[in-house]
Structures are given as C-alpha cells and as structure tokens.
C-alpha cells in the first residue's frame, strides 16, 4: 500500500442542546479523500465520545447526515474535505429549519407527519391480461426522477418559507411537493391532490427561488419539474375563468 498524506484541519462544530450551545474547535489529522463525516467521526472516537451526529450509509444513499458545512446545506458523507478551503476552519452545524435535539442532530419528525397527510397512492385497476399493468419507460422516467429522493430534507432546510418564515403549519415544503408530484404523475395513480395542494399544503407560498434545486444532492430538478407543473395544474383547476364559472354554478 502506498502511504498517503495527512492534513491537519480545524473543525468548528456546533455543540449544544435546545437550551444552550456554542461552536467548539477540534483539531484533527485527516487522510486523503476523507469526507466531513469521517472527520466528525474521528473527533467523536478520539476527543468527544458523546458528540451527537446522525448517519447511516456513508455513501449518499440514505440522507441521514444532513448538516450545514461552511454555511452550505450538504450531506456530510459526500462533502470531501480537500474540496473545502484549506486555510480556514471547517464549520459544521445542524440544519436550521428544524428544532435542535443535540449537537448536529435535529428533530425532523415534522416531515414524517406532513407526509402522512398526503393522500396515498391509489392505482387504477390492473388492465393487462395477466392482472398487472403495462407502462412505458418514458412515462416511468419522469416519476423516477422524483423517486430518487433520499429524504435528506436539505431542500426543506433551505426553503425560506420554512427557514425564515416558519410556515411549517401551512406549507409542506419542496420535499413534499416532489412527493406529491411523483404521485400525481405516476402512470397508474387515480387520486386527486390538487385541492389539498392549494388549500392545505400552501403551494402558493413557493415563489420559485429554486434554492431547493440547488442543494438537492440527488440533482432532482425540484422547482422546474415538480413544483411548477403542480402550480400549473392547480391554476388550471382553480383559476381558469370558465372552470370557475362552472364551479359557481354546479359546485366542486
């Protein structure tokens, strides 16, 4: 095995709980190719055993280790240290849009509650002779983009409607517009979620700043491919003057 160079870095990690907290500097010698999560683990194993951090796969597939690295929402497991500025401390802090549990761990349960409210998948009756369905790859492709989502909630974290305006009660956030879009555009689905999207889920709050798309580690085109088409469907249903007149006459 070839020897590999190590580098000394300072990690400025947020330590604290709901009541109180501060940044603490840790010095660590990191190997070539290490990601931020590795450095955090190194600190945990050698200097701060109770440092709270959530992680699972360490391969960008589970979406557990979301945090803000040098102020940018990222997966710690996919952020290489050698791609960060070498001459300054690396700051690592928890996502800001969710309540802090401890250190780098936040309480993301709100997301699970929101998801449960969205009407589930309701397929049409199987229509192929063998009791299943036929679907074209082309129709599946569009939805597969949305189904790449690893639920890291970085898009939720960066969305100003949640992060700055705290509209958690009235707005479901980009992740769940992507989820709703995946269901609405599913080739087999027959459920109707447009009224919910307009009235309950607050799709009107999104003013298309595209921050969510920028931070998505799965490169899902959240705004253009999911949110805007949903907004169009909602507008067609509720703001089309002819449909509006019909609704006044005949009800929903």
């Amino acid at each position: 095995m070839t020897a590999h160079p190590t580098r000394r870095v300072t990690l400025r990690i947020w330590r604290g709980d709901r009541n109180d907290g501060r940044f603490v500097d840790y010095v660590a010698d990191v190997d070539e190719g290490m990601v931020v999560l590795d450095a955090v683990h190194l600190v945990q194993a050698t200097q701060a055993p109770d440092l709270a951090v959530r992680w699972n796969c360490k391969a960008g597939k589970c979406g557990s280790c979301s945090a803000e690295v040098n102020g940018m929402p990222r997966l710690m497991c996919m952020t290489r240290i050698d791609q960060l500025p070498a001459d300054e401390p690396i700051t690592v802090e928890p996502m800001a849009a969710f309540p802090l549990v401890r250190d780098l761990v936040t309480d993301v349960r709100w997301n699970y509650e929101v998801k449960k409210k969205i009407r589930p998948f309701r397929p049409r009756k199987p229509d192929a002779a063998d009791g299943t369905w036929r679907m074209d790859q082309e129709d599946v492709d569009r939805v597969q983009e949305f189904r790449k989502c690893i639920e890291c909630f970085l898009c939720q974290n960066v969305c100003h409607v949640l992060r700055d305006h705290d509209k958690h009660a009235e707005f479901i956030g980009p992740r769940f517009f992507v989820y709703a879009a995946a269901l609405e555009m599913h080739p087999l689905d027959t459920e109707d979620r447009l009224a919910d999207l307009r009235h309950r889920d607050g799709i009107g709050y999104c003013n298309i700043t595209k921050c969510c798309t920028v931070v998505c580690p799965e490169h899902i085109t959240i705004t253009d491919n999911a949110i805007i088409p949903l907004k169009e469907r909602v507008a067609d249903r509720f703001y089309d003057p002819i449909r509006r007149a019909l609704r006044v006459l005949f009800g929903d």
Partner: protein
Amino acid sequence: MAHGYERHDCEVLVIGAGGAGLRAAIEASAAGARTAVVMKSLLGKAHTVMAEGGMAAALAHVDDRDSWKVHFADTMRGGQYLNQWRMAEIHAKEAPERVRELEAWGALFDRTADGRILQRNFGGHRYPRLAHVGDRTGLEMIRTLQDHGVHQGIDFHMETTAFRLLKDGERIAGALCYERERGRFVVFRARAVVLATGGIGRAYRITSNSWEYTGDGHALAYHAGASLMDMEFVQFHPTGMVWPPSVRGVLVTEGVRGEGGVLRNRDGHRFMFDDIPENYRNQTATDPDEGWRYVIGDKNARRPPELLTRDHVARCINREIKAGRGSPHGGVYLDIAWIREKLGDAAREHIRRKLPSMYHQFKQLAGIDITVEPMEVGPTVHYIMGGVRVDPETQMSDVPGLFAAGEVAAGLHGANRLGGNSLSDLLVFGRRAGLYAAQYARSVSDPTLDEDDIQRAAAEALAPFERDGGENPYALQRELQDLMQDLVGIVRTEAELLRALEGIARLRERARNVSVGGNREYNPGWHTALDLEPLLTVSEAITRAALERKESRGGHFRDDYPNKDPQYGAFNLVVRKAADGTMQLERRPLAPMPEELTRIIEEQK
C-alpha cells in the same frame, strides 16, 4: 431506586424497519394484529436503502425459459446445498407475487419494451432475473413499503434500539428498548416478536454495512435461548471501493458486472477466465466474445465468468491481490468503460442511465469517471448467510413467539447467497413472519412481564455511565473489527481462528470495563458501548463455527482444508447458549429433500 420506563402493549412487535421489518409489520397489521415497530434509525433509512442491483424473481419477462424451478436450483447451487430446501422452494415460488405486489403499492421498476417489469443479469442466476430501478432498487423498495406502511395503522417508534428480549417462562413476552434521542427506556409487552435487524458487518473493519449492523437480532435471539445456524458463512462482496481510504468497503453493485463490467488485474488480464468451478462450467462462457453476447441478450450464449457466485469471485480477486497482481491501492480493476468498444459513443449514456449512483459515487468520492476509467475494487464484508434458525414455513425460532426474517434469519442462502436473493428474501419471508406472528398472537393470551428482569436489564444498560476512566467504546469496537478482519476473514486457518477466540475473550473482559461520559440524550458513545456485546457474541459464534467446519464451502474458506468435504455437506452447524452461559455447537443433519426437488436440481445441472 427503580429505573423508570414507558410501557406499550401490542400483539406483534417488529424489531427493525428495513425491507423485512416493514413487510412483516404490514402483513401483521393486515391480519388484524396491533403492531408496533422499533427501529434504530429514522424511518426509511435502514440498510435496505443501500441495496442496489435488484430483487430476484422468476417473472420470465426477459427470458421465458425462466421459472421457479430454475430459480430454486440456482439458489441451491449457489448455497452449495446447505440451504433449507423448503425455504428456497417457497422463496422461488412466492418472489414474483411479492414483486408485483410492490408495483401495486406504487413502486416503479424499469420497463421492458412491451411495458412489463425489466429484469437484469446477476451472478449465479441462469437467466436475467432481477427486477430493478437503475442501481437504486433498495431505495425504491424501502420507500414503497414506508409510504404504504404509514397508512396501515402501525405504531412506529423511530431511533429506538432493542436492548433485551423479555420472556414469560419459555415464551416471548416483549422487549426492553431505549430511545436514542432522550435515552429513556421503553418496554413493549408483546405476544409475538419479529426480529428483522439485518446483519453483522460492523464486526469487520472493511464492510459495506452501516453502523446499525451490529448483530443485534442475532444476539438478542441467542440470549433468549434461540438457536443460530450457519454462522461461519459470511459473504465478502467481491467489489467494494478501495480508494480513497475513507470509503474503503463502500459497495460497488454487482449490476456493474451484470451490465458488462469485467475484472482485470494489473497486467490487464481478465483473470476470471482462469478459474471456473466444475459445477458452473456448463453455464459459463469460454471466451470474452460469448460473455458479451450473453450480456446483450443472446440466448445461445453463456454468462461471463465475472457473474460467477460472489464467494468465488471474491476469492479470485483476493488471490490476484495476494499474488502481487493487484492495482496500486490493493484492489483489482473493474472496467465498465470498455463497452465503448462495443457500443461506441452510446456507451457513456448507457452507463449513466443504468448505473447512475455508481457514476455519482465514484465521481464524487474518488474523482473517477467510470464511463472512461476503470474502478479499483476489492472484497468487502457484505452479508451473513447465518442467523436465527427458523421454521421454514412460519419463520418462528425455537423460542415460542419469537420470529425472524431477512438477513437475521438463516436457511434460505446456505453457504453463499446469490445477489438479488436478499431483497426478495425480505419480502417473501418478511410477509410470512408477519402473517404467522399475527396468527400466533391470536392463539395466545397476554404474557406477564417480569419486573425484576426489566430492572436488571435497565441497570446493565446504564452501567457504562457508572464507571469512570474505563475503556473507550470506539477504540474497543475498532480493535474487534481489526481482529475479525485479520483472523476470521476471507481465508481462514485453525491457528488464526484460535487466536481470534482468545482475542474475543480478552475483548469481552475489557468490554465489561467500558465507560462513557455525558448524559443519556443522543449519546453515541453510550450507544457504541451497548453495541459491543452483540458484536462480541456474533464474532464468537462466527469464529467457533468456522473452527468446526474443517472444509471449504461457499463463503467459508479454510486454507488448511481447501477442498469441499462431502461429509460436511450433510449438516448445518447450530450455536446455542448452554445452561452455564457458554456457547455450544451442534451438528444438525439436513432434512431429506423430496424427490421432486432433487429431480429439479438434477434437470438444471
């Protein structure tokens, strides 16, 4: 002072929320049982999410010669006939229905030209058999089960770890768990418990497994009096990343080879053609041209040697590296970019489309573009074939009311698992465990919990806080990983296994002196300390069984007994906790196979 806890009552408690746990919970709930699920992570983050290649089911969409019989014979051959034949039969018969059911719950698999579920090639499967979604099939599966499951009235407890199974006399009575977030104890009284905790990869240094894989279910079952079986069979996946050091062990899907990827040594030689086992010779291509024709769907061609079973491919790679013919960072080359020679410029797009997360993973973590350069890969601990011994029909263990499904259960895979047979295992036997657990729960009354047991277990769990200046749990875990990697690895010898046993005993002594600081709220140091006991227990079981099996078969290779010995093909090794607390080993003869199944195996040879 008594330790406080929150108390929940349910009929079926499922431990683990990967594919098997979620499928079990859905079925138990559908059968009318009040069902709760505890999981160490957040919902949807379990290790299933990392499965890449696909789930094996003889749908026969791509090759109409496929059937449950061929799938059954492939599974038995891959497992070197130590599989519980009844489980292999059930699995092959029921997997197609489980895949279709997933589609009915919203999963979107890649499609054939005529709009059906597409299937891909994988090691040891005679025909293209894996339903898949690019290289993120596990994510599709877990998300589908999660999104379906949350509407079924199941009680989910996230970031809650099971610490001890509770019993009422001989039967199961529930479990003592702790919430990771606040560190509080939670006691579940349950008529039936389904273990779906996955595997043991964290007992090794180089592994594709996440932190959760600490053998919890194996150890919980063992201490509750259940039998473990086939523990000597640990699967080294042939292709893990080897560079950079921090990602060593991260999985590179077998799908790369399924799509035409080839293995080469330092000299550019395709070494897999050099060593083709006798029992696969009839099914394996004789030259690269035939191998490629198989990849692109020529029904007259046989599969390339890169698609031999994982145990064999991993050993061949290991041999090249040991012989000094490896790549610069101690692996070999896995090359998918070469298909440009066949597909021209379309190759690049094809690779990115079929292997998007591999492309992304190498680009981001290693700075390698797999559409132009070869990857460096080497074996990584991936899976344990061994686990809780269960009834093939119901998945119930030797302990009444205790069930197991998925990786934590033994039997389906024998001495070696075929790629793609795990995801289908989770669904087929997850469903069965849930169904029969609910049935069992209906047939019994509520158990009685023993408060002394609960208090004793709670005190044990908190002991690391009581000690000062003891061992660092992270350092101990690392020492165990080094020991298992070096002494109970891909090639084993008696001398090394004996040293491993001594080492494990010493680590066990030191583990009694582990101390942790801080408080009980989200304290990974404490969690790591509590993970040591199950890790040590499974490590000891693996080592003892590996010592006892004086032959080489499937995932177990003994340098001092390099050949397969028919005498050892007649039994499984079973590990139990004796009355005096020591680990005891027993040879259990295989159940005789019905003639009909023997005939199927003969016909498929």
